[in-house]
């Protein structure tokens, strides 16, 4: 089967699953006494009716596109990265520290924040990889433990006088020199505000009303790099080979332990990048108290799955996921139906995508396409 056909089939699956998801959500809406058409109308107008809504969707998609890529990278090497939450926090903690404690000129400061955050979370990933390869600690277990460790580290750090902003349950904000907002400085000046509100163009509204930032550009670049890595490079070959058959890889002279550690480090680095970009790109540009995890890691798994485990697919599935999440709040505000209805829709979609690949495997077996003898 050629690639084109495969993509088509996967796309059909996703569209079908989406339709089923919306129908099921609709049924639940009817049962709970709401008009599904009205609710979905609210959903879509909450996504598309204003340029700033669209901008919000894009902004919120950045971290989950990245955590999706992060999950994908680990998965290609046969690892199950359940630690995106912790790696995301590592990235945001380091970003907050470097962003608020150090002083660099604009631009360079942003780079310093990103590089240090990515390095720190890559090191965390490497530790998880080493734990696995040297002592056989399952990565799922160490990942989950690190998730909680970092959650509480985050909560602890923002109580220390060193990082805690007086009179706030949060850390100091990072300096503006480290922000990644589009026209961040200019748009807050009086001149900027005047120019933007006067222009009336949709882009001006986006700039004025949202935290439109360069994160999405970086996320897309990362996705393209990952795509090239797997398609064209020897490193990508090794990383995938280790995931697909560890024994054959070892016997082919591929250092499997090294590659597992690398894969985990790369995966964690991408989640760390997501954390850093949230701090640099979005208000309030600081760490805050967390009762539970923010859920970016688990959304990432969904994004990777809906994106059919393709790096480019993750961009679109991330946008799609973010759309439904963001739009769900307007369902609640406009019709009164619980916004959780969209969680149900998303869950159903994921369920049916998972099932559809199962169907395909069964169908293939029956037809005997897996083997020609």
């Amino acid at each position, binding site marked *: 089967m050629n690639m084109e056909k495969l993509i088509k089939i996967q796309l059909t699956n996703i569209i079908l699953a989406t339709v089923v998801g919306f129908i099921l959500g609709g049924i639940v809406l009817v049962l709970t006494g709401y008009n599904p058409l009205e609710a979905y109308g609210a959903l879509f107008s909450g996504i598309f009716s204003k340029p700033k809504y669209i901008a919000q969707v894009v902004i919120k998609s950045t971290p989950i596109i990245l955590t999706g890529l992060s999950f994908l990278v680990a998965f290609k090497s046969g690892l199950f990265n359940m630690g995106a939450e912790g790696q995301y926090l590592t990235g945001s903690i380091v970003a907050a520290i470097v962003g608020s404690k150090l002083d660099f000129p604009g631009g360079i400061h942003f780079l310093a924040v990103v590089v240090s955050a990515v390095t720190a979370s890559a090191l965390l990933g490497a530790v998880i990889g080493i734990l696995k390869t040297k002592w056989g600690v399952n990565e799922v277990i160490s990942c989950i433990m690190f998730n909680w460790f970092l959650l509480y580290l985050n909560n602890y750090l923002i109580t220390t006088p060193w990082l805690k902003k007086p009179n706030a349950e949060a850390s100091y904000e990072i300096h503006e020199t480290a922000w990644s907002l589009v026209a961040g400085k200019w748009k807050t000046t009086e001149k900027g505000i005047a120019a933007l509100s006067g222009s009336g163009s949709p882009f001006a509204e986006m700039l004025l009303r949202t935290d439109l930032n360069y994160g999405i550009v970086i996320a897309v670049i990362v996705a393209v790099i990952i795509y090239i890595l797997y398609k064209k490079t020897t490193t990508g070959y090794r990383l995938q080979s280790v995931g697909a058959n560890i024994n054959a890889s070892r016997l082919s002279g591929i250092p499997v332990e090294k590659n597992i550690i690398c894969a985990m480090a790369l995966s964690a680095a991408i989640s760390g990048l997501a954390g850093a970009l949230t701090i640099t790109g979005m208000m309030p540009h600081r760490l805050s108290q967390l009762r539970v995890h923010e859920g970016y890691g688990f959304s990432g798994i969904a994004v990777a799955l809906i994106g059919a485990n393709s790096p480019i697919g993750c961009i679109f599935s991330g946008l799609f996921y973010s759309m439904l999440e963001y739009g769900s709040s307007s369902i609640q505000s406009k019709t009164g139906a619980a916004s959780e209805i969209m969680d149900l829709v998303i869950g159903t979609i994921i369920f049916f995508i998972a099932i559809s690949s199962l169907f395909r495997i069964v169908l293939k077996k029956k037809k005997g396409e897996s*083997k020609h003898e």
Partner: protein
Amino acid sequence: MNAAHAIEMHGIVKRFGNFCALDEVELEVKKGSIHAILGENGAGKTTLMNILYGLYDYNKGQILVHGKEVHFKSPRDAIHAGIGMVHQHFKLIEPYTVLQNIVLGYEKKGLFGFIDYRKARKEIEALIKAYHFKIDLDAKVRDISVGMQQRVEIVKALYRGADILIFDEPTAVLTPQEIHELTGCMKNMTEEGKTVIIITHKLEEITQCASRCTIIRRGKFITEVAVDGCDTKKLASLMVGREVNFSVKKQKKAGTEPMFEIRNLTVEDRQGICRLSDLSLEVHHGEIVGIAGVDGNGQQELFEAISSLIMVKSGTITIHSKEIQNTDPKTMLENGITVIPEDRQKDGLVLDFTVAENLISQNLSAPQFSRHGFLKKPEIMASSAALIEKYDIRPSGCSALKCRALSGGNQQKVIIARAIARNPDLIIAVQPTRGMDVGAIEFVHKALIEEREKGKGILLISLDLDEILKLSDRVAIISSGHITGVFDAQDADKGKIGTLMVGGKN
């Protein structure tokens, strides 16, 4: 319709997309007989049996079991109708014990719905006794040898009450003694009224045990013959469609310095049990050294020690006077050794990678295939196409096909092509022709001999004694992890080797 036939298959057609795997195939198997199905790799034998076993659906045709028309939707239906199958690639769950594997899916429940292992054990032990198997019911499947795994599969089928047993390449992994036992078992089974169908490439076994033989070539039914009136040569030519040359020509080489030496090698497993003890061996340029032995006597450990998959406790492994024990497979490859592993799907290939990708797996960093870490796709495809052509890997032009889509024999050709293309000094071949047909075996043997003629050394580890005697210049017998004797292949006496293999004295 004939009640004397256990199985009848008429006009079976099976298409995979545009590819017609089976075209009007006929099969009639007499009750209580041993019936062989003969055909090259990819001829469609396994497909035919998978249809009979309910694994595949078919496009056209009719199947009758004991004179009654059936249409199996799944193996469950087939098992219910008394058909059992022992697959070429075993369908066992590795972390489970033998006993658990046998009862799996057929658990008899006792009080409170718990599995009644005691009763099952009793029944299975009776079966094992009746057919003279040697099986440790409490061993985990991942810890037992391939030969024993097959016996587990057989017992599994018998335990499910099969009275028609299909064997897919049953002897590929067995020692001569075990093959002898197996043929005995098969005959016992038929005496008790069971029907046996074997798919095999080994012509001697057909002449030894089968009464009739159906021959399939490229998905087409060729003929059904009575085995009594046939010799192996005739069967082989019917199967391949041309004359087959059985003997390989070898030229005697003058003695040289050994290029590969193993000195006093001792290997212990995790439990501290000695797997190889004080093993010494050497291979010269232009020489094939065969390691003969009963499965599980250290062959696997020898292979793993050479490729540094396991640690060596003491002793040395040297190639060109460089020690390589306790390094890694990469060092081994860099020092001019390549391996053809026994389990091609587990250790040989990445099945989800394409043929082209698998062909370069040991050569990723070679300037020929990559620059600055970027793969050179056109060069890789060109080299792959050339190897596919040279080694007749089918279907032709399969560079972009996933290895999973290839038949077992063609997967093996990919491994062999990859091994030889590296231009190694020494090839370690473990069961290189396991599960392949005579045409393909001839091909592999020729390729190995060709390498030998070029002055390469070859260490051939095989459970097939005939293969060893045919190819080797010298034969070393391994028993309990120790070399118990070394012979020149010309002076080798099969009886003496057999005795040494089972631990007897020279």
